[in-house]
């Protein structure tokens, strides 16, 4: 008998703590499989991987990714990743961050990591809400969306329109590759994995800063079932946050 499928070795056996219907589990697996494939393809030496976990729902990512891991202060993962990468330039360094972490408290760190062309990759999981603290408004929360700190719906006149990080970072000269994906269906899950792998490959080639934004659901804090949450993401988030490649210097160079 031949093995047709096995769990990636880049994930530990620790059971995820994520809520039912949360997309973090899928995205974790995609990141781990992308690394695994690069190792199997001989493009990356096993053990030359370091991940940086954020503060937010994925704060325990260090328990799940089966490699050396750092837990960063809220928003500081790109700075921590910078320190790691400068010390170990041959190591694949990735940060895994949510939208509160990256798009609010950590804007300076992510913009300047991109600006320096830091050879790290960021997996940016955007679910338009603060999950871990219980569903507060994020900079990415959609206009009209109700959260525990925008109980009447986000008012654009009062707190601005949702921030679009992929669009913004694609304007930074040092950013090499920026793509927005989603994991709402099988086709998009495969596309997301391809994007993550591409970001890692660019890093290994020493190209520059790469970010893959992944639109994700939060059924618990959105107050929806997992199936309804996917539908809400498709009907509300994707129109405001269009999927696609925002920057790919690699494609432009070819």
């Amino acid at each position, binding site marked *: 008998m031949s093995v047709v499928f096995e769990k990636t070795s880049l994930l530990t056996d620790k059971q995820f703590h994520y809520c039912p219907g949360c997309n973090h589990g899928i995205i974790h697996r995609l990141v781990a499989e992308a690394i695994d494939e690069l190792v199997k393809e001989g493009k990356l030496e096993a053990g030359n991987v370091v991940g940086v976990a954020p503060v937010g729902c994925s704060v325990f990512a260090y328990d799940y990714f089966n*490699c050396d891991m750092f*837990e960063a202060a809220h928003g500081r993962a790109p700075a921590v990743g910078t320190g790691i990468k400068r*010390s170990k330039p041959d190591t694949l360094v990735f940060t895994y961050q949510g939208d509160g972490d990256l798009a609010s408290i950590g804007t300076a760190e992510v913009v*300047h990591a991109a600006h320096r062309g830091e050879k790290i990759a960021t997996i940016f999981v955007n679910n338009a809400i603060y999950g871990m603290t219980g569903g507060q408004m994020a900079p990415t929360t959609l206009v009209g969306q109700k959260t525990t700190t925008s109980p009447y719906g986000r008012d654009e006149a009062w707190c601005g329109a949702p921030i679009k990080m992929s669009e913004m970072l694609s304007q930074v000269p040092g950013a090499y590759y920026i793509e927005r994906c989603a994991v709402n269906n099988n086709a998009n899950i495969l596309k997301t994995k391809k994007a993550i792998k591409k970001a890692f490959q660019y890093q290994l080639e020493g190209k520059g800063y790469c970010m893959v934004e992944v639109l994700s659901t939060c059924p618990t804090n959105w107050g929806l079932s997992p199936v309804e949450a996917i539908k809400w993401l498709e009907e509300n988030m994707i129109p405001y946050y269009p999927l696609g490649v925002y920057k790919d210097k690699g494609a432009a160079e070819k």
Partner: protein
Amino acid sequence: MALTLMKGSEAIAEAAIRAGARFFFGYPITPQTEIPEYMSARMPEVGGCFLQAESEVAAINMVYGAAGTGARVITSSSSPGVSLKQEGISYIAGARLPCLILNVMRGGPGLGSIQASQGDYFQGVKGGGNGDYHLITFAPSSIQEAINLIMIAYEKAEKYRVPVLFLADGIIAQMMEPVEMPEMVEFHVDPEKKPWAATGWKPGDDPAKRAVINSLFINTEDLSAHNDILQATYREIEKNEKQWETYQTEDAEILITAFGTVARVAKSAIDELRAEGVKVGLFRPITVWPFPYEELKAEADRPNVKALLDVECNEGQMLEDVKLALNGTKEVDFFGHCGSQMPTTEEIKCKILAMKEGK
């Protein structure tokens, strides 16, 4: 060995490199900007990394990242910048990472001044960031002493897995003195000596050896156990690492306590007073954490000591530790200035003479 005339900030930077520092992350701020400037030129010469961060917040988190790989890392700043670093310092202390942090103190609070001050004593030795932690904190009073302490700083930081802080007032960084610069130390990350560092664990290796650089312990029992380790480490440091200097204490009737540059001013005052027949001595903590409480108490307990005078370039911060050491056994008077005005020899003399006359 020949003496070289060097500016404090440059001597401190060179000493750090000779002690094995190969990563510097910082941000310009007066009066320590010569340190990053020096590092930007010197690091490439030794195959090291100088990186100007977008903020002090980012710089200290870069330190967290690089220190977690086992490298010898340094950052420097001055008071308002060190305030910004407190978040990262707390995480570094929590994650038990060795590193070197320089605070070239200027006047405060807020933007304060750009001249020398000792106003960050509380911040340095009583916490600064959140949680129960300490940093080994050196307060050098000459450039040579700063160099010598930097040469042992990484060994101490790595032995105890504790960050080391230098509390140097602006004068230490800005003045020039003849110094003897030690030889370059050979340093390489040894995964055997730093099993906690991220040095390339891979699936299939012993899961217990996977590096997780972290200060989060969500279960209260785990956090409690982690803090027990930290506290046990601090007790060890208190036992082994106190440093202090005494000057003319044997027959002193008034004992001055002072640290850093102020202690040197105090020494001048002591020499002049002794020439006039006034018996004064000095107790100078070199480590302000751990503070040499028992050692100060022993000096103050001499029957000839009538009273103590604490002198600082702040409104009396170390004074609290001096009083803790004395525990009410003798009078402790205070003289100091804020506003970056160094107490002068003349002022200290006047104060001592007034104390003698019971004024």
